């Protein structure tokens, strides 16, 4: 088996592929996600996002202050279509003043 170093195990994004994206001029989490598919699997970046952020900062490709995560969209936990369908009824009145 070929030795490979993974940054994102969900989508099989290796360090080599991150290097390729950096060589193509990308230095930002969002750009590298779009180029490699990193963070788009079932874990949605829980395992890879901060590993990539640390790598970019350690190589001085981006400053920590400028580093942004990619957008954390729902669902952050698995949810079935059946459960979502149960929410079709109207929300009760807003309790806040």
């Amino acid at each position, binding site marked *: *088996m*070929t*030795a*490979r*170093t*993974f*940054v*994102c*195990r*969900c*989508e*099989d994004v*290796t360090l*080599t*592929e991150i290097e*390729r994206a950096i060589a193509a001029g990308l230095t930002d989490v969002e750009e590298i996600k779009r*180029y490699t*598919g990193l963070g788009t*699997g*079932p*874990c*949605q970046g*829980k*395992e*890879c*996002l*901060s*590993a990539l*952020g*640390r*790598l970019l*900062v350690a190589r001085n490709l981006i400053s*920590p*202050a400028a*580093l*942004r*995560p990619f*957008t*954390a*969209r*729902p*669902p*952050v*936990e*698995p*949810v*079935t279509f*059946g*459960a*979502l*369908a*149960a*929410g079709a*009824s109207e*929300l*009760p009145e*807003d*309790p*806040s*003043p």
Partner: protein
Amino acid sequence: MSPRSAACYRRRVPKAPLLAPPGPPTLTFRWDGAAIPACPGDTVASALIAAGELATSRSAKYRRLRGPACLHGGCGTCLVRVDGRPNQRACLTPVREDMLVEPQNTYGGLDPTALVDQIFRRGIDHHHLVVYPRIANQMMQGVARELAGFGELPDAPPAEVAGLVDHVPEVLVIGAGRSGRALAAALTAGGHTPRVVERRPAAALAGPDLPADLLAGVGVFACYPQERLWAAASEQPPVLHRLRPRHVVLAVGAHEPTIPLANNDLPGVVSARGLVDMLEQTGRRLTARVVVIGEGARAEHLAGLLAAERVAPARVHKLLGARRVKGVQLDDRRILRCDLVALAPDPAPAFELAAQAGAPIHFTGAGFAPVCDADGRIATAPAAHPLEAADAQTAPPPPWTLWAVGELAGATTPPEIRGTVDRCAAALLRALAESPAPEDSQPSLSSSSLPGRGLP
């Protein structure tokens, strides 16, 4: 995949179990042609690891074997099919007698890894791979479509229609880990019992300090600030929960990110934190040889709890093994033989729900976290990013105050976690005293269609 007859399941007793049971195993479940012994406190993942069954799936591109890794419901490589329902997290699924657990995306006994390695020696560069000629590209797209996806459809539609429960709690605490439990106890002592929602099932939450008002096995999956709503769901029983709290405390802890090392995806490479928690929860004892890879006081502490040798990531040349991890090769060519490798990275705060709620997010050096004050009150200042600022202008201000405790608030050690809990509880009780709940927000639970079990 249809359930095979129980008669064909041979009892596969491992020569040396990796995790010794707390007592004689009293349960058996079916796994990929084998009968796996288990104890009542086990999850599917803990019983499989104990039996030395470390692989549960194959990966998306290189078709490499993968197995339970984070042991905490986060990583997505322990997804299995349980009694005909796909994509169940083995690490969060309690064992039941005679349940049928099947691997997903493993292609029977075929091992495509070697073939993929032959064809794609230098990796799969999908920007240039078979883009031309067009006919080859079309064929490849067809193959890629067939290979994509996780698991297969369920055997049957769900037996029950999902229920719906609306909650209007004064305080919602998300997470019943160390910080969530401590905070709930402090608020209860101050006369304001919060509703606590925890994604782990009740079976995994034994302990004397469980919150009084706890919904276990319910995962908060979204915050919708425009709809002024938090949403959570359980799969069994299937229920959707809509929550409209006045205060939300995020006690969601942290993720364990991967450490980029050669072959860091081998079955048997797990999170050190996840392994420690699994042993505590199941009462199992480590009999496997473990090497911890990590730096700093936290990694050292975890290695101590696992009675394992610790090496710094910089010293690791690669992890050894093919179907499971067998050892760690160091830069000086020395090899440390082991059955499990436990990664101890700096934890990355679970910032996702805070971000959905509109909190400004910053990079801490280890990961991303919401900006909060010393009491854990999460800032509602204008977002740093122009796109997020545009969203913030059109959205009405949310009707809740957002708080962070524990690892999300930057704590890493138990005393620091305790500190964030104490400060947050004091500030939150002050806020509740200054602005009592309006009369019409009681009772705190209203149900539109309540299923018959599993709910207060």
